[in-house]
């Protein structure tokens, strides 16, 4: 791997020179290294770029890493990764992507991830996106996620984008069977002229399925963010979406949380709040000895869970 990949890995996966257990490392559109473990098997797709990751029922609190690094300009990376999680497996998937540009040419990464969680499986999915480099070329990351959760399966997704990505369009769709749970925490900070658009659609098709969708965004400078979520409650189920946004400078945020129920037993709720950092929050932290800038940083870091 090259030095820029090392730099990206450190930030998006806390890599310290080695991955424990199974991993697949992608650099500039190619899988440059991978390793299986006893319970996690990674197989390259024959007909398209990408991998199938088979996680056996015996996997317990195991971690698999699948980071993607774009380290130069003029790379258009599109990859299809499918996760097949057997009944009862318990696994952490650390994904994430960094795009580096060094000229006027842009680069992009488009990761299309599909999750198939069998009955009673549990997946924690962590994804961090960054853009780096001195190039003026646009750094683009457009992830697409599709998830099917079997009976009692649990998928916890934590996604974080803090800096450097010029544009992102994030699409997530999920279908839940009975007693399945989907928890999504998304945090995005944009600045300059960056734009971010996120789109969630969740079908609660199984009795007592539930989704908790929490989005936190900070829009600084002249950046713009758009959030759209649709929760479809088709049976007795629980759905909650919460979109909170902090604006500063000329930042813009549009939040469009939507709920749709076709069952009288669907229990759906959404909350959305957009505003600047409260003056009293800054003042309180200043009385604890922070400067105004330090106070803002602490408030934003806490808000985003960064």
């Amino acid at each position, binding site marked *: 791997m090259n030095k820029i990949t090392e730099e990206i890995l450190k930030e998006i996966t806390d890599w310290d020179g080695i991955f424990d257990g199974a991993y697949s490392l992608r650099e500039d559109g190619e899988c440059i290294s991978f390793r299986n473990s006893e319970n996690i098997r990674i197989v390259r797709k024959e007909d398209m770029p990408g991998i199938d990751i088979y996680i056996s029922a015996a996997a317990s609190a195991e971690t698999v890493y699948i980071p993607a690094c774009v380290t130069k300009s003029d790379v258009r990376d599109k990859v299809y990764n499918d996760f097949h999680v057997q009944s009862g497996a318990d696994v952490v998937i650390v994904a994430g992507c960094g795009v580096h540009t060094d000229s006027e040419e842009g680069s992009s990464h488009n990761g299309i991830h599909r999750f198939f969680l069998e009955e009673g499986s549990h997946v924690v999915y962590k994804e961090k996106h960054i853009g780096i480099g001195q190039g003026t070329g646009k750094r683009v990351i457009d992830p697409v996620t599709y998830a099917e959760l079997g009976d009692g399966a649990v998928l916890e997704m934590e996604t974080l984008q803090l800096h450097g990505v010029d544009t992102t369009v994030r699409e997530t769709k999920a279908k839940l069977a009975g007693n399945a749970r989907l928890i999504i925490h998304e945090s995005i900070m944009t600045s300059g002229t960056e734009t971010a658009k996120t789109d969630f659609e969740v079908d609660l098709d199984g009795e007592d399925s539930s989704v908790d969708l929490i989005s936190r965004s900070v829009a600084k400078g002249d950046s713009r963010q758009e959030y759209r979520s649709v929760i479809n409650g088709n049976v007795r189920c629980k759905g909650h979406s919460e979109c909170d946004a902090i604006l500063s400078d000329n930042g813009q945020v549009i939040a469009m949380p939507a709920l749709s129920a076709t069952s009288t037993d669907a229990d759906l709720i959404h909350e959305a709040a957009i505003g600047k950092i409260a003056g009293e929050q800054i003042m309180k932290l200043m009385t604890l000895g922070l*400067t105004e800038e330090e106070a803002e940083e602490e408030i934003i870091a806490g808000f985003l869970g960064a």
Partner: protein
Amino acid sequence: MLSLVDVKLDLPEKENLIKGVSLDIAPGKLTVITGPNGGGKTSIAKLIAGIFVPTSGKIILDGEDITQMSVTERAKKGIAYAFQSPVSFKGVTVRKLMSISAGADMPEMKMCRILEKVGLCARDYMDRDMDSRLSGGEMKRIEIATVLARPARYILFDEPEAGIDLWSFASLIDAFEVLKKEEDRALLIISHQERILDIADDIIVINDGIVTQKGTRDEVMPTLAKSGARAYCPRGKEMF
């Protein structure tokens, strides 16, 4: 010594809020500011903390004029202020807030000792966010704890009794009594509560933006009682 010298304050929404207040807050003492609602007590605390800047007059801290100093600079000089209404922070944990206040990561044992003073168990609270999922009373107690965590020399508490249950309030009184024995620290408490007035060394009465009385507790308390202040109290335990 912290001194206000003929301090006046106008705000856009109210002129003559403070009409020329002079007072001294001495280390090693617990001073209580009391008086009717809307009389200017909280404004004085905010003037000392730097949240309000006087229209005229001076604020002197240990011989240094701090009138134009920022809130941050005053905090670094040793002034701490517990807000009357606690501020909520989405995503900021109690542990983080206490550490910011202490100026360094706070060991759990120390956090335990401080939160215990306000009737909270650190294990139950330190990893919770300081937000609306906490009750008003819990937030108020954490607000006070953040100030107790600061190595400050001049500590201001704005109506610490508000929203606190009787048991936690008793612990808080104990904490104030311990603090007031520290000779290098000055406590300034804004309160209507008789139990807080009872442990005061000095009492200052503010009404309509001016100091109407000041002196030791023994000097001021009989006057307060005579003035019939107790008669106006709906609960019978507050002086105003």
